[in-house]
Protein backbone atom coordinates (compact mmCIF):
# COMPACT_ATOMS: atom_id res chain seq x y z
CA UNK A 1 0.00 0.00 0.00
CA UNK A 2 2.97 2.35 0.50
CA UNK A 3 3.30 4.08 -2.87
CA UNK A 4 5.94 6.42 -4.23
CA UNK A 5 4.80 9.98 -4.58
CA UNK A 6 4.57 11.10 -8.20
CA UNK A 7 4.70 14.87 -8.53
CA UNK A 8 4.28 16.91 -11.70
CA UNK A 9 8.02 16.86 -12.37
CA UNK A 10 8.09 13.07 -12.48
CA UNK A 11 5.04 12.85 -14.70
CA UNK A 12 6.44 15.14 -17.39
CA UNK A 13 10.20 15.25 -17.02
CA UNK A 14 12.54 14.54 -19.92
CA UNK A 15 15.26 11.95 -19.44
CA UNK A 16 18.07 14.46 -20.04
CA UNK A 17 16.55 16.75 -17.38
CA UNK A 18 16.50 13.89 -14.89
CA UNK A 19 20.18 13.20 -15.61
CA UNK A 20 20.97 16.88 -15.09
CA UNK A 21 18.96 16.96 -11.86
CA UNK A 22 21.03 14.03 -10.58
CA UNK A 23 24.32 15.55 -11.77
CA UNK A 24 24.81 12.70 -14.26
CA UNK A 25 25.93 12.56 -17.88
CA UNK A 26 25.27 9.79 -20.38
CA UNK A 27 27.97 9.35 -22.96
CA UNK A 28 29.70 6.52 -24.75
CA UNK A 29 32.22 4.30 -23.04
CA UNK A 30 34.19 1.44 -24.57
CA UNK A 31 32.36 -0.21 -27.48
CA UNK A 32 31.65 -3.87 -26.96
CA UNK A 33 28.54 -4.90 -28.88
CA UNK A 34 27.39 -4.46 -32.45
CA UNK A 35 23.64 -5.04 -32.51
CA UNK A 36 22.18 -5.72 -35.92
CA UNK A 37 18.47 -5.39 -36.56
CA UNK A 38 17.95 -7.30 -39.79
CA UNK A 39 14.37 -6.14 -40.32
CA UNK A 40 10.94 -5.67 -38.86
CA UNK A 41 9.15 -8.61 -40.50
CA UNK A 42 7.93 -11.16 -37.97
CA UNK A 43 5.56 -14.10 -38.01
CA UNK A 44 4.05 -12.76 -34.76
CA UNK A 45 2.63 -9.35 -33.84
CA UNK A 46 3.28 -9.22 -30.09
CA UNK A 47 1.34 -6.60 -28.19
CA UNK A 48 4.42 -5.33 -26.36
CA UNK A 49 6.68 -5.01 -29.45
CA UNK A 50 8.52 -1.68 -29.41
CA UNK A 51 9.12 -1.93 -33.16
CA UNK A 52 5.57 -2.90 -34.10
CA UNK A 53 7.12 -5.79 -36.04
CA UNK A 54 4.75 -8.12 -37.86
CA UNK A 55 3.99 -10.20 -40.95
CA UNK A 56 3.20 -7.21 -43.16
CA UNK A 57 6.40 -5.26 -42.51
CA UNK A 58 8.60 -4.98 -45.60
CA UNK A 59 11.84 -3.67 -44.06
CA UNK A 60 14.50 -6.37 -44.55
CA UNK A 61 18.28 -6.15 -44.60
CA UNK A 62 19.79 -6.79 -48.04
CA UNK A 63 22.88 -8.89 -48.69
CA UNK A 64 24.78 -5.69 -49.61
CA UNK A 65 24.02 -4.17 -46.21
CA UNK A 66 24.98 -7.47 -44.57
CA UNK A 67 28.37 -7.23 -46.31
CA UNK A 68 28.74 -3.69 -44.93
CA UNK A 69 27.84 -4.93 -41.44
CA UNK A 70 30.40 -7.75 -41.58
CA UNK A 71 33.06 -5.29 -42.78
CA UNK A 72 32.19 -2.91 -39.95
CA UNK A 73 32.32 -5.74 -37.42
CA UNK A 74 35.89 -6.35 -38.67
CA UNK A 75 37.10 -2.73 -38.37
CA UNK A 76 35.10 -1.94 -35.22
CA UNK A 77 36.80 -4.49 -32.96
CA UNK A 78 33.54 -5.57 -31.30
CA UNK A 79 33.38 -8.40 -28.76
CA UNK A 80 29.78 -9.36 -29.42
CA UNK A 81 27.48 -9.31 -32.44
CA UNK A 82 23.82 -9.36 -31.43
CA UNK A 83 21.42 -10.17 -34.28
CA UNK A 84 17.80 -9.18 -33.73
CA UNK A 85 14.61 -8.23 -35.57
CA UNK A 86 11.57 -8.70 -36.20
CA UNK A 87 12.15 -12.34 -36.60
CA UNK A 88 15.68 -12.62 -38.05
CA UNK A 89 14.83 -16.11 -39.32
CA UNK A 90 12.52 -14.58 -41.93
CA UNK A 91 15.32 -12.56 -43.54
CA UNK A 92 16.89 -14.20 -46.62
CA UNK A 93 20.66 -14.66 -46.32
CA UNK A 94 20.62 -14.67 -42.51
CA UNK A 95 22.98 -17.65 -42.61
CA UNK A 96 25.37 -15.54 -44.73
CA UNK A 97 25.33 -12.80 -42.10
CA UNK A 98 25.82 -15.18 -39.16
CA UNK A 99 28.67 -16.99 -40.86
CA UNK A 100 30.39 -13.71 -41.73
CA UNK A 101 29.97 -12.28 -38.22
CA UNK A 102 31.27 -15.47 -36.62
CA UNK A 103 34.53 -14.98 -38.55
CA UNK A 104 34.97 -11.42 -37.23
CA UNK A 105 33.56 -11.34 -33.69
CA UNK A 106 34.30 -13.64 -30.71
CA UNK A 107 30.65 -14.10 -29.75
CA UNK A 108 27.56 -14.01 -31.98
CA UNK A 109 24.06 -13.90 -30.48
CA UNK A 110 20.81 -14.55 -32.33
CA UNK A 111 17.51 -13.40 -30.85
CA UNK A 112 14.61 -15.64 -31.74
CA UNK A 113 10.90 -15.68 -31.01
CA UNK A 114 11.10 -19.53 -31.22
CA UNK A 115 8.07 -19.87 -33.54
CA UNK A 116 10.02 -18.52 -36.54
CA UNK A 117 12.57 -21.29 -36.01
CA UNK A 118 10.06 -24.08 -36.45
CA UNK A 119 9.78 -23.90 -40.23
CA UNK A 120 11.39 -27.04 -41.67
CA UNK A 121 13.13 -24.92 -44.30
CA UNK A 122 15.14 -23.39 -41.47
CA UNK A 123 16.48 -26.67 -40.18
CA UNK A 124 19.78 -25.77 -41.80
CA UNK A 125 19.81 -22.52 -39.80
CA UNK A 126 19.75 -24.41 -36.52
CA UNK A 127 22.58 -26.57 -37.75
CA UNK A 128 24.61 -23.46 -38.67
CA UNK A 129 23.91 -22.00 -35.23
CA UNK A 130 25.08 -25.21 -33.58
CA UNK A 131 28.25 -25.43 -35.69
CA UNK A 132 29.16 -21.76 -35.13
CA UNK A 133 28.32 -21.95 -31.40
CA UNK A 134 25.92 -19.05 -31.81
CA UNK A 135 24.26 -17.99 -28.56
CA UNK A 136 20.47 -18.10 -28.79
CA UNK A 137 18.31 -15.63 -26.85
CA UNK A 138 14.71 -16.77 -27.00
CA UNK A 139 11.69 -14.61 -26.20
CA UNK A 140 9.70 -16.37 -23.49
CA UNK A 141 7.81 -13.80 -21.46
CA UNK A 142 6.02 -15.87 -18.82
CA UNK A 143 5.57 -19.32 -17.32
CA UNK A 144 1.89 -19.69 -18.10
CA UNK A 145 0.22 -20.39 -21.41
CA UNK A 146 -2.48 -17.79 -20.77
CA UNK A 147 0.02 -14.97 -20.27
CA UNK A 148 2.21 -15.92 -23.20
CA UNK A 149 -0.72 -16.31 -25.59
CA UNK A 150 -2.33 -13.05 -24.43
CA UNK A 151 0.88 -11.23 -25.20
CA UNK A 152 2.11 -13.03 -28.31
CA UNK A 153 -0.87 -14.71 -29.94
CA UNK A 154 -3.03 -17.79 -29.55
CA UNK A 155 -1.04 -21.02 -29.57
CA UNK A 156 2.38 -19.37 -29.24
CA UNK A 157 3.01 -20.94 -25.81
CA UNK A 158 2.73 -24.53 -27.03
CA UNK A 159 4.77 -23.82 -30.19
CA UNK A 160 7.47 -22.09 -28.10
CA UNK A 161 7.64 -24.97 -25.62
CA UNK A 162 7.94 -27.47 -28.47
CA UNK A 163 10.82 -25.48 -29.99
CA UNK A 164 12.60 -25.24 -26.63
CA UNK A 165 12.40 -29.03 -26.38
CA UNK A 166 13.88 -29.28 -29.88
CA UNK A 167 16.71 -26.89 -28.95
CA UNK A 168 17.42 -28.89 -25.80
CA UNK A 169 17.58 -32.03 -27.95
CA UNK A 170 20.27 -30.31 -30.05
CA UNK A 171 22.18 -29.57 -26.84
CA UNK A 172 21.18 -25.92 -26.48
CA UNK A 173 20.77 -24.89 -22.85
CA UNK A 174 22.27 -28.08 -21.47
CA UNK A 175 25.17 -27.92 -19.00
CA UNK A 176 28.64 -28.30 -20.54
CA UNK A 177 27.30 -28.44 -24.12
CA UNK A 178 28.89 -25.12 -25.04
CA UNK A 179 25.57 -24.18 -26.65
CA UNK A 180 24.03 -21.31 -24.74
CA UNK A 181 20.28 -20.79 -24.66
CA UNK A 182 19.02 -17.79 -22.73
CA UNK A 183 15.43 -16.71 -22.25
CA UNK A 184 14.20 -13.12 -22.46
CA UNK A 185 11.11 -12.19 -20.45
CA UNK A 186 9.04 -9.09 -19.99
CA UNK A 187 5.94 -8.20 -17.95
CA UNK A 188 2.49 -8.82 -19.35
CA UNK A 189 1.35 -5.21 -19.18
CA UNK A 190 1.85 -1.74 -17.73
CA UNK A 191 3.87 -2.72 -14.68
CA UNK A 192 7.53 -3.29 -13.86
CA UNK A 193 9.12 -6.73 -13.97
CA UNK A 194 10.23 -8.64 -10.90
CA UNK A 195 13.91 -8.89 -10.07
CA UNK A 196 15.95 -10.96 -12.50
CA UNK A 197 17.35 -13.42 -9.96
CA UNK A 198 13.93 -14.20 -8.49
CA UNK A 199 12.42 -14.47 -11.96
CA UNK A 200 15.16 -16.86 -13.09
CA UNK A 201 14.49 -19.11 -10.08
CA UNK A 202 10.77 -19.06 -10.82
CA UNK A 203 11.25 -19.82 -14.53
CA UNK A 204 13.72 -22.62 -13.80
CA UNK A 205 11.42 -24.17 -11.21
CA UNK A 206 8.43 -24.03 -13.53
CA UNK A 207 10.09 -24.95 -16.82
CA UNK A 208 12.38 -27.63 -15.44
CA UNK A 209 9.86 -29.05 -12.99
CA UNK A 210 6.72 -28.95 -15.08
CA UNK A 211 8.04 -29.22 -18.64
CA UNK A 212 11.53 -30.70 -18.35
CA UNK A 213 13.11 -27.74 -20.15
CA UNK A 214 16.65 -26.45 -19.62
CA UNK A 215 18.10 -23.01 -20.24
CA UNK A 216 21.20 -21.11 -19.15
CA UNK A 217 19.97 -17.73 -17.92
CA UNK A 218 16.92 -15.53 -17.93
CA UNK A 219 17.16 -11.89 -19.01
CA UNK A 220 14.33 -9.65 -17.90
CA UNK A 221 13.26 -6.32 -19.37
CA UNK A 222 10.75 -3.58 -18.70
CA UNK A 223 8.28 -2.99 -21.50
CA UNK A 224 9.38 -0.08 -23.66
CA UNK A 225 6.78 2.66 -24.22
CA UNK A 226 7.27 2.63 -27.99
CA UNK A 227 5.67 1.03 -31.03
CA UNK A 228 2.75 -1.32 -30.46
CA UNK A 229 3.09 -1.22 -26.67
CA UNK A 230 2.87 2.57 -26.69
CA UNK A 231 -0.27 2.40 -28.82
CA UNK A 232 -1.77 -0.03 -26.32
CA UNK A 233 -0.77 2.19 -23.38
CA UNK A 234 -2.54 5.13 -24.98
CA UNK A 235 -5.63 3.20 -26.03
CA UNK A 236 -6.01 1.52 -22.64
CA UNK A 237 -5.57 4.73 -20.65
CA UNK A 238 -2.36 3.47 -19.03
CA UNK A 239 0.15 5.79 -20.71
CA UNK A 240 0.42 8.53 -18.11
CA UNK A 241 0.57 6.20 -15.12
CA UNK A 242 3.12 3.92 -16.78
CA UNK A 243 5.41 6.80 -17.70
CA UNK A 244 5.04 8.14 -14.17
CA UNK A 245 5.92 4.72 -12.77
CA UNK A 246 9.05 4.43 -14.94
CA UNK A 247 10.14 7.95 -14.08
CA UNK A 248 9.53 7.55 -10.35
CA UNK A 249 11.61 4.35 -10.42
CA UNK A 250 14.64 6.12 -11.95
CA UNK A 251 17.79 4.64 -10.44
CA UNK A 252 20.88 6.82 -10.91
CA UNK A 253 23.12 3.81 -10.23
CA UNK A 254 21.80 2.09 -13.35
CA UNK A 255 23.06 4.79 -15.72
CA UNK A 256 26.68 3.68 -15.82
CA UNK A 257 25.75 0.17 -16.98
CA UNK A 258 23.28 1.12 -19.71
CA UNK A 259 23.76 -0.82 -22.92
CA UNK A 260 23.84 2.33 -25.07
CA UNK A 261 27.23 3.20 -23.52
CA UNK A 262 28.86 0.15 -25.08
CA UNK A 263 26.63 -0.77 -28.04
CA UNK A 264 26.13 0.33 -31.62
CA UNK A 265 22.79 -0.56 -33.19
CA UNK A 266 22.59 -0.84 -36.97
CA UNK A 267 19.19 -0.93 -38.62
CA UNK A 268 18.07 -3.04 -41.62
CA UNK A 269 19.02 -0.15 -43.94
CA UNK A 270 22.49 0.41 -42.45
CA UNK A 271 21.62 3.53 -40.42
CA UNK A 272 23.21 3.66 -36.96
CA UNK A 273 21.49 4.16 -33.61
CA UNK A 274 22.57 4.12 -29.96
CA UNK A 275 20.20 1.22 -29.26
CA UNK A 276 17.32 -0.75 -30.77
CA UNK A 277 14.81 1.37 -28.83
CA UNK A 278 16.17 4.59 -30.32
CA UNK A 279 15.75 2.89 -33.68
CA UNK A 280 12.05 2.48 -32.89
CA UNK A 281 11.92 6.11 -31.73
CA UNK A 282 13.74 7.27 -34.89
CA UNK A 283 16.56 8.86 -32.89
CA UNK A 284 19.80 8.22 -34.83
CA UNK A 285 23.15 7.71 -33.10
CA UNK A 286 24.22 10.87 -31.30
CA UNK A 287 21.34 12.68 -33.00
CA UNK A 288 23.08 12.52 -36.41
CA UNK A 289 21.87 10.24 -39.23
CA UNK A 290 24.84 8.15 -40.42
CA UNK A 291 25.21 5.04 -42.56
CA UNK A 292 27.45 2.20 -41.44
CA UNK A 293 29.69 2.74 -44.50
CA UNK A 294 30.54 6.24 -43.20
CA UNK A 295 32.11 4.83 -40.04
CA UNK A 296 35.88 4.32 -40.01
CA UNK A 297 35.70 2.60 -36.66
CA UNK A 298 33.58 2.45 -33.51
CA UNK A 299 32.09 5.70 -32.17
CA UNK A 300 34.48 7.64 -29.95
CA UNK A 301 34.35 7.28 -26.19
CA UNK A 302 32.71 10.36 -24.68
CA UNK A 303 30.48 11.02 -27.68
CA UNK A 304 26.84 11.95 -27.17
CA UNK A 305 24.02 9.42 -26.81
CA UNK A 306 20.57 10.41 -28.05
CA UNK A 307 17.84 10.09 -25.41
CA UNK A 308 14.06 10.32 -25.09
CA UNK A 309 11.45 9.68 -22.40
CA UNK A 310 11.47 5.97 -23.29
CA UNK A 311 14.97 5.79 -21.76
CA UNK A 312 13.32 5.71 -18.33
CA UNK A 313 12.39 2.10 -19.11
CA UNK A 314 16.11 1.18 -18.98
CA UNK A 315 16.82 3.01 -15.69
CA UNK A 316 13.78 1.86 -13.69
CA UNK A 317 14.58 -0.05 -10.52
CA UNK A 318 17.69 -2.12 -10.95
CA UNK A 319 17.89 -0.96 -14.57
CA UNK A 320 17.86 -3.02 -17.75
CA UNK A 321 20.23 -3.59 -20.63
CA UNK A 322 20.43 -5.97 -23.58
CA UNK A 323 21.66 -8.58 -21.14
CA UNK A 324 18.75 -8.01 -18.78
CA UNK A 325 18.87 -6.43 -15.33
CA UNK A 326 21.92 -4.26 -14.58
CA UNK A 327 22.33 -4.33 -10.80
CA UNK A 328 20.33 -4.67 -7.64
Amino acid at each position, binding site marked *: *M*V*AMKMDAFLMETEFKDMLARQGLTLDRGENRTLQINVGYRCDLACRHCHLAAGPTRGELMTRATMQAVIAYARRGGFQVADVTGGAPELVPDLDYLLTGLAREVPQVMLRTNLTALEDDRRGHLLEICRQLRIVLVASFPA*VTAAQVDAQRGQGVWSRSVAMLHQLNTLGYGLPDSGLELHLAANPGGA*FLPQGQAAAERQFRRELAGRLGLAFNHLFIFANMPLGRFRTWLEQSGNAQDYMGKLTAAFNPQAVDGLMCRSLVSVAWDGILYDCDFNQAANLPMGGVRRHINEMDGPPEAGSTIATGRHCFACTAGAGFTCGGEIAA
Partner: protein
Amino acid sequence: MDTYYDPKDLGRFQEIGKDAPELARKFFAYYGEVFAEGALSAREKALIGLAVAHTVQCPYCIDAYTVACLEKGSNLEEMTEALHVVTAIRGGASLVHGMQMRRQVEKLSL
Protein backbone atom coordinates in the same frame (compact mmCIF):
# COMPACT_ATOMS: atom_id res chain seq x y z
CA MET B 1 -15.63 15.58 -0.92
CA ASP B 2 -17.30 13.80 -3.88
CA THR B 3 -16.41 10.28 -2.79
CA TYR B 4 -15.01 8.64 0.31
CA TYR B 5 -12.26 6.97 -1.73
CA ASP B 6 -9.97 8.79 -4.20
CA PRO B 7 -7.31 6.71 -6.03
CA LYS B 8 -4.95 9.70 -5.94
CA ASP B 9 -4.84 9.45 -2.14
CA LEU B 10 -2.71 6.31 -2.45
CA GLY B 11 0.14 8.33 -3.98
CA ARG B 12 -0.21 10.89 -1.19
CA PHE B 13 -0.21 8.34 1.64
CA GLN B 14 3.06 9.57 3.09
CA GLU B 15 1.43 12.92 3.84
CA ILE B 16 -0.17 11.14 6.77
CA GLY B 17 3.12 11.84 8.55
CA LYS B 18 2.71 15.60 8.47
CA ASP B 19 1.19 15.87 11.91
CA ALA B 20 2.80 12.85 13.53
CA PRO B 21 6.15 12.49 11.74
CA GLU B 22 7.89 10.20 14.22
CA LEU B 23 5.05 7.72 14.31
CA ALA B 24 4.83 7.78 10.50
CA ARG B 25 8.58 7.28 10.16
CA LYS B 26 8.43 4.24 12.42
CA PHE B 27 5.39 2.86 10.64
CA PHE B 28 6.82 3.22 7.13
CA ALA B 29 10.19 1.84 8.19
CA TYR B 30 8.45 -1.16 9.77
CA TYR B 31 6.23 -1.57 6.71
CA GLY B 32 9.23 -1.60 4.39
CA GLU B 33 11.02 -4.18 6.54
CA VAL B 34 7.95 -6.42 6.69
CA PHE B 35 7.72 -6.68 2.90
CA ALA B 36 11.45 -7.14 2.23
CA GLU B 37 12.84 -10.55 1.24
CA GLY B 38 13.10 -12.71 4.32
CA ALA B 39 12.21 -16.25 5.32
CA LEU B 40 9.28 -15.61 2.99
CA SER B 41 10.01 -14.22 -0.46
CA ALA B 42 8.79 -10.75 -1.42
CA ARG B 43 6.52 -12.49 -3.94
CA GLU B 44 4.90 -14.66 -1.27
CA LYS B 45 4.45 -11.64 0.99
CA ALA B 46 2.76 -9.70 -1.79
CA LEU B 47 0.31 -12.57 -2.30
CA ILE B 48 -0.48 -12.58 1.43
CA GLY B 49 -0.91 -8.80 1.24
CA LEU B 50 -3.32 -9.16 -1.67
CA ALA B 51 -5.39 -11.75 0.16
CA VAL B 52 -5.54 -9.70 3.37
CA ALA B 53 -6.37 -6.57 1.35
CA HIS B 54 -9.51 -8.31 0.14
CA THR B 55 -10.33 -9.46 3.64
CA VAL B 56 -10.08 -5.95 5.10
CA GLN B 57 -11.73 -4.71 1.89
CA CYS B 58 -9.38 -1.77 1.46
CA PRO B 59 -9.53 -0.48 -2.15
CA TYR B 60 -6.14 1.22 -1.82
CA CYS B 61 -4.55 -2.02 -0.66
CA ILE B 62 -6.26 -4.07 -3.37
CA ASP B 63 -4.96 -1.65 -6.00
CA ALA B 64 -1.44 -1.59 -4.53
CA TYR B 65 -1.09 -5.34 -3.96
CA THR B 66 -2.52 -6.27 -7.35
CA VAL B 67 0.32 -4.29 -8.92
CA ALA B 68 2.82 -5.60 -6.35
CA CYS B 69 1.89 -9.20 -7.15
CA LEU B 70 2.28 -8.63 -10.89
CA GLU B 71 5.61 -6.89 -10.38
CA LYS B 72 6.84 -9.76 -8.20
CA GLY B 73 6.03 -12.26 -10.94
CA SER B 74 2.72 -13.69 -9.81
CA ASN B 75 0.02 -14.43 -12.32
CA LEU B 76 -3.75 -14.15 -12.20
CA GLU B 77 -4.16 -17.86 -11.46
CA GLU B 78 -2.00 -17.60 -8.31
CA MET B 79 -3.62 -14.33 -7.25
CA THR B 80 -7.10 -15.79 -7.63
CA GLU B 81 -6.13 -18.84 -5.57
CA ALA B 82 -4.85 -16.51 -2.84
CA LEU B 83 -8.28 -14.87 -2.71
CA HIS B 84 -9.92 -18.25 -2.35
CA VAL B 85 -7.70 -18.98 0.65
CA VAL B 86 -9.03 -15.95 2.53
CA THR B 87 -12.53 -16.58 1.24
CA ALA B 88 -12.38 -20.12 2.60
CA ILE B 89 -11.15 -18.89 5.97
CA ARG B 90 -13.80 -16.17 6.15
CA GLY B 91 -16.49 -18.65 5.18
CA GLY B 92 -15.10 -21.27 7.52
CA ALA B 93 -15.00 -18.76 10.35
CA SER B 94 -18.72 -18.16 9.90
CA LEU B 95 -19.53 -21.81 9.54
CA VAL B 96 -17.53 -22.99 12.53
CA HIS B 97 -19.60 -20.63 14.70
CA GLY B 98 -22.43 -22.93 13.78
CA MET B 99 -21.13 -25.14 16.55
CA GLN B 100 -22.10 -22.44 19.03
CA MET B 101 -25.54 -22.38 17.42
CA ARG B 102 -25.78 -26.14 17.69
CA ARG B 103 -24.74 -26.20 21.34
CA GLN B 104 -27.34 -23.57 22.12
CA VAL B 105 -30.03 -25.47 20.24
CA GLU B 106 -29.07 -28.70 22.00
CA LYS B 107 -29.22 -27.02 25.38
CA LEU B 108 -32.62 -25.51 24.75
CA SER B 109 -34.24 -28.42 22.99
CA LEU B 110 -35.90 -31.50 24.40
